């Protein structure tokens, strides 16, 4: 119990620090949003108009830093992130909520799948090391993990959508499909996600396989595994509850981190496949000095990572009794 409480306290303090830094950092960056806006009008706009736009954005309002900070905290609690400069005059929260499902669906699902599949393959290849599976899969996926992502993605587009014409090369769904909860639309979305998902999977699975395999091999040399064998337990049970349960612990934190980072999207994936997620939104917000959007995205990212770590800590506590007993 104390372990969980301590973790919770740590979570709250880190969250506060992150929120505060998130407030300060954009204000330390050079340049200002008014200029970024002006350049988008190609200098044709009058100075009075610039002033009107500045007021609409809340730029150059002479507010003290402390006052601005508390307004910011209040707005965050209520979920108000202001108006986006990139998507003027739309609210930031609206834009982020529109893009997030695409990223969560694609990157989230593939991250979980890569972890599960990678862990399973790693465990089985360690259990039967030198066997057929161990000889084939880990080397292949380690090699594919070393491929530069954009190269593999472009190659996949070239082969499967341009040469063979099997799969669409870009977008989240076909432009002529009606957006609705129909089988036709869902099928179209799934079809558009196959290439990006497959390429992410191929390039990310190798890491999980390798670490899981190596962890398992070292765990297999432990005395308690020998003990289990001596007791005559079934190999299946030894593999899962003795070797697997212990070998997965170091991987859990890594998995939690990568889950947290899912909300930051995958900039390269979204760029190459023109996929409508939040990854390129990050890029856009920085390029346009869109503080409101930047803050919302960074906040989302920090909170997601912190939450994921908290959950991983909880999972570790369940899987590993030592963390619970220590105090």
């Amino acid at each position: 119990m104390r372990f969980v409480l301590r973790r919770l306290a740590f979570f709250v303090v880190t969250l506060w620090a992150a929120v505060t830094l998130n407030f300060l950092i954009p204000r330390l960056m050079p340049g200002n949003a008014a200029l970024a806006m002006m350049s988008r009008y190609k200098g044709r706009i009058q100075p009075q108009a610039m002033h009107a736009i500045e007021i609409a954005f809340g730029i150059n309002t002479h507010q003290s830093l402390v006052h601005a900070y508390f307004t910011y905290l209040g707005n965050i609690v209520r979920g108000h992130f202001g108006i986006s400069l990139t998507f003027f005059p739309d609210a930031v929260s609206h834009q982020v909520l529109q893009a997030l499902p695409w990223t969560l669906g694609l990157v989230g699902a593939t991250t979980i799948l890569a972890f599960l599949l990678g862990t399973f393959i790693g465990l089985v290849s360690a259990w039967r090391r030198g066997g057929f599976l161990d000889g084939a899969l880990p080397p292949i996926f380690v090699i594919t993990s070393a491929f530069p992502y954009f190269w593999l993605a472009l190659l996949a587009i070239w082969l499967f959508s341009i040469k063979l014409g099997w799969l669409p090369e870009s977008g989240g769904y076909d432009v002529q499909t009606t957006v609705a909860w129909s089988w036709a639309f869902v099928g179209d979305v799934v079809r558009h996600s196959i290439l990006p998902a497959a390429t992410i999977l191929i390039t990310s699975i190798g890491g999980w396989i390798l670490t899981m395999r190596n962890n398992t091999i070292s765990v297999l040399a432990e005395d308690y595994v020998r003990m289990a064998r001596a007791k005559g337990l079934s190999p299946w049970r030894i593999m899962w509850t003795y070797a697997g349960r212990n070998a997965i612990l170091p991987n859990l934190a890594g998995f939690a981190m990568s889950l947290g980072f899912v909300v930051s999207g995958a900039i390269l994936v979204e760029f190459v496949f023109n996929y409508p997620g939040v990854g390129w939104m990050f890029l856009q917000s920085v390029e346009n000095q869109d503080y409101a959007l930047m803050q919302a995205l960074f906040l989302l990212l920090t909170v997601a990572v912190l939450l994921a770590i908290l959950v991983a800590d909880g999972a570790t506590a369940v899987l590993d009794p030592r963390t619970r007993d220590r105090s």
Partner: protein
Amino acid sequence: MKRALVFAVLVGVGATVWAGFGTAGDKTVRSASAKTAVTISNEQGTTWTCGFSPFNGDVNSLSFGPVYEELVFVNGLKSGAATKWLASGYKWSNGNKTLVFTIRSGVKWSDGKPFSADDVLFTYKLLKANPGLDLNADWAVLKSVSKSGNKVTFNFKTSAVPYFYYIAAQTPIVAKHIWSSIKNPVTYKDTHPVGTGPFKMSSCSPQVIKYSKNSGYWQKGLPHIDTIYYPAFTSNDPANQQLASGKAQWGSQFIPNIKAYYSSKSSDNHYWFPPLVNVNIFINLKNPILSNVAVRRAMAYAIDRGKVSRIGEYGYEPPSNQTGIVTPTFSSWLDKGLASKITYNPSKAISILQKAGFKKSSGVFHTKDGKPLSFRIINIGGYSDWVASVQVIQQQLKAVGIKITPENLSSTTFDSDAYNGKFELMYNGNESGGPAPYYELRQLLYSKNSAPIGKAASSNWERYYNPAVDKLIEQYGATTDSAKQHAIVTKLEAAMVNDVPVIPITEGVDWYQYNTRNLTGWVTQSNPYAKPAAYEIPDWGVLAMHLKAK
């Protein structure tokens, strides 16, 4: 051996699964692509906000043209030839200080309500009350607007002939019965635009906008096609791929090596890049060395513009000439004698510098007090064609003994430095131009568009100040006589050649690709009835409504 076999099996299984999905989907795509639709491919680097406010500079290209319309359509490819649009007539009077429009009758808004002079009056009053909407700075020159019956009268502060373009052709007219109830028009999103145009916005998602035919459109028989699809592209490659495969028929894209990548794919694929505005080297005239006209002239002679165009721009953007007249678009304005005065001639460049008293040491010319002719040139790092162009220029200037060092900046820093005059040399083609060469020359040369170093200048970034030129620019504004206008522009060309305030290098173009398999009626070089890029306001609405199924 064993491993290779496993790999082959895996690939085979994967391919079969993919093939199953692929064939099923392909059929639906083919049957859905109707003949009476056009799909646009134009990478804008963003998904759609589904806002359509015609006064928001970020999204007005999605509504102004197909949905919202202007009083008079002005063709920028035919030296500003005017077609009456929502106005059925117009007349200048009072020494070209008063402009009266007769408003067309029988036009309806897309929600069925009648359009009238009230809407026109309301629109300009809206711009006056909200400077944030006045993208063309109409009210910088307007004094008042009034209405009587079906006539709307504009009174100007001075003679304002060139402002006709901004007032009549670049200001979209909105419906009074919709916009009068909006509390804050600057932040109004306009998700369901009601316009007088040939199309209605019928559905929008962040990924695609669908426009449908406005069956009650006031120009009888138009538009011919039923649907426009405008997908959002956040990067260039997918947009180009859609064009090459014919899934999109109307492109506004930069395509590297276009012959191999696009034209060779199908005999139905065509492209045309009409030049519109110069990409120039801006020279900071407040710099003590660069204020010497000999240095500027030497640079103008030292640059082989044809080579810059071929290497830096794949030849898509043709080489400019020193008069600043974009050819062939505005050829009728070009003084050929002036244009041929400064051409590529490196030995002439060297002799100009020698005559002006510069001395060469270790390959670089120096001033009398020993300062080298070595300058920084700022550029936008994200524009790979400009970066390549400047590298070519760097080598050409080096050959005559002038050193330039490129600095590739982010576009925000670049703009800020440009406006505030914080540069020695600058590679820039961001002037907005206009339907005749006057507009660009005015942006480049008029001292009222300039400002002291450290203050934001709107377009005369090199800080050129010449009272005689200012006078010429103002005289043009007071005349509607074409012969007088031509005479004034010739004098402005002479100023460009004699003073070399900027060095035009290449001619920025409208990016335009089109596919003729199912559709005809496209803008072509022999029939340039509108600017053809899908981002040109309001021209692309005009192009869209003239498209016809074969």
